[in-house]
């Protein structure tokens, strides 16, 4: 049998294919949303755990990986037609989104699990789904346990063995804010960090452009210490890598992670169902287990073994919560100055 395709047939077929995206998407319209999640471990966890739980509630969630700053950028560029229905960001970005009028306040009565949240996780703009505790991830087989950020720059055991990032990363920004304090900086004054970077630039093993790049360096044995959250350590361990978490002596910076509904979300009902699933005991119990090990905000969920290995409730209570208003005010100038301080 010979297949014959006429030019007219080919043109009709091609036109049909091109027109396909314009057909009504009935199946998806019932309860589908696009929800942003940080790339890497968050994206994996939300795709494998959150999406199926939301599906049980009748919501088809498409997880779109994007860093918190990228989510803000895309929202600002969207001109009233948001690319996401739900965002996953931290307080620094929440403030920016609120200032730009890009997120809506929520109606807590629409969330069945709202009352189960710990008080600090209830905010008018959306629930906190976890609190990330930050510190230092290190390889116990190759370097001693670091006592804090300062030791990385002063103990020869860490010379060339630790990796850092710039101010595009929340984890790094919080760490730099702590380092600035340790070297005599006032709030909002990052000059001690830039002086330190210029003085000790060759002491640093790797300066990455993203968290994923830094974690890849760790996996390849290029570095043995980096600024990290407990979730990063849990993830690396799940990959079979030796990795421990160290709380800096000066205190561990912590940062809540919240889900927000975008202004103009295509399906607010579905976003509420997704938010409710994210703060449900079922989802948070699974997310508290390896490889994610996320600290729960649902009061009915206990800290799992892996979380307790990294953070006790007492350590969480004493964590440092940075002043994001000050950080947002200076972030642009710090980012620009960081580039100048580290550039070859």
């Amino acid at each position: 049998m010979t297949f014959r395709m006429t030019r007219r047939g080919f043109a009709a077929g091609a036109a049909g294919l091109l027109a396909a995206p314009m057909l009504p998407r009935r199946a998806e319209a019932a309860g589908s949303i696009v929800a942003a999640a940080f790339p890497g471990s968050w994206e994996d966890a939300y795709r494998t755990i959150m999406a199926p739980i939301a599906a049980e509630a009748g919501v088809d969630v498409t997880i779109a990986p994007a860093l918190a700053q990228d989510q803000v950028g895309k929202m600002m560029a969207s001109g009233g037609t948001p690319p996401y229905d739900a965002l996953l960001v931290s307080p620094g970005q929440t403030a920016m989104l609120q200032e730009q009028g890009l997120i809506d306040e929520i109606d807590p009565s629409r969330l069945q699990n709202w009352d189960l949240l710990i008080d600090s996780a209830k905010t008018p703009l959306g629930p906190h789904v976890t609190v990330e505790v930050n510190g230092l991830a290190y390889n116990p087989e190759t370097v001693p346990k670091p006592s804090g950020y300062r030791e990385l720059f002063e103990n020869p055991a860490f010379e060339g063995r630790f990796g850092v990032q710039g101010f595009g990363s929340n984890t790094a920004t919080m760490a730099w804010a702590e380092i600035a304090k340790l070297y005599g900086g006032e709030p909002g004054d990052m000059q001690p960090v830039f002086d330190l970077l210029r003085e000790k630039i060759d002491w640093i093993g790797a300066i990455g452009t993203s968290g994923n790049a830094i974690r890849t360096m760790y996996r390849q044995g290029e570095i043995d210490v980096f600024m990290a959250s407990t979730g990063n350590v849990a993830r690396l361990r799940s990959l079979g890598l030796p990795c421990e978490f160290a709380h800096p002596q000066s205190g561990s910076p912590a940062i809540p992670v919240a889900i927000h509904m975008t202004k103009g979300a295509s399906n607010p009902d579905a976003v509420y169902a997704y938010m409710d699933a994210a703060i449900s005991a079922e989802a948070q119990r699974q997310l508290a287990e390896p490889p994610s090990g996320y600290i729960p905000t649902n009061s009915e969920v206990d800290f799992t073994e892996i979380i307790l290995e990294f953070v006790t409730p007492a350590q969480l209570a004493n964590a440092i919560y940075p002043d994001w208003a000050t950080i947002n005010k200076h972030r642009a100038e710090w980012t620009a100055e960081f580039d100048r301080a580290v550039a070859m």
Partner: protein
Amino acid sequence: MQRTTGAIFASPMLAMMLLFFLAPLGVLAVASVTGPEGGLTLDNYRVFLADGFAVGVLVDTILLGLKTVAAVTLLGVPLALLYWHSGPRMRTLILVATLLPMLTSNVVRTFAWIVIIGRNGPISQTFVELGLSDRPFSLMFSETGLVMALTQIELPLLVLPLIAVLSAADRRLVEAAEVLGADRWRSLVTVLLPMMTPAILAGWVLVFASATTSYVTQSVIGGARLIYMPQFVYREVGVLFQWPMAAAISFLLLVSTGIVMLGVTILARHRRLAAYA
């Protein structure tokens, strides 16, 4: 009549070019000269060009493209000549080896290079084993490592046009040169290279354009210490949200790489070189 029919068939492509290339470029151009108050201004360009650090980034980006072009040429031309001299099996092998990396994503190829040029990678280990280095070393976050990675990633862009030209080349020309007394080097320089030159120039344009704008490879292999224009643009867009400045930087990158590419294209159209094509 024929001209009208041709215009009708070309119109979808022209419409696409207009809608999806020229119109966005126009938006970019307008954005780059838009001030904070919405008026027209050249301040974004002025600020960039007055900043020595920023101009250094632009120069480094152009130099990175040129270094990659040089490295790809040094590797790609001998590979194409090997193809020319090989039998059918070897030719297939060279073609597959050249094409195979193109079937994987640029991200995958870039991350593979982390393994190759890392402290525990084969390059470092070989140097240590041969006694050429006292201890393992890493080429990550160095320009050498970046040029090596870009060379492999961009290699097909030069080798494939060369193979296409050589496949169609008349072997009797080389034989004629040899019959007339030319040795192998002379045949190469006077017969083969002139035939290959248009393809080499076309490859240079492709390699240069791709290497200077390769954000993933530049940022992953180069890290934060080697800053090139695509990272600079990303920072302005995604971190600082300074879109008019990002548009101005993008335009400057477009113009500066465009000038280099235009130079190569003009060279390719030179009377003597075009005669060999």
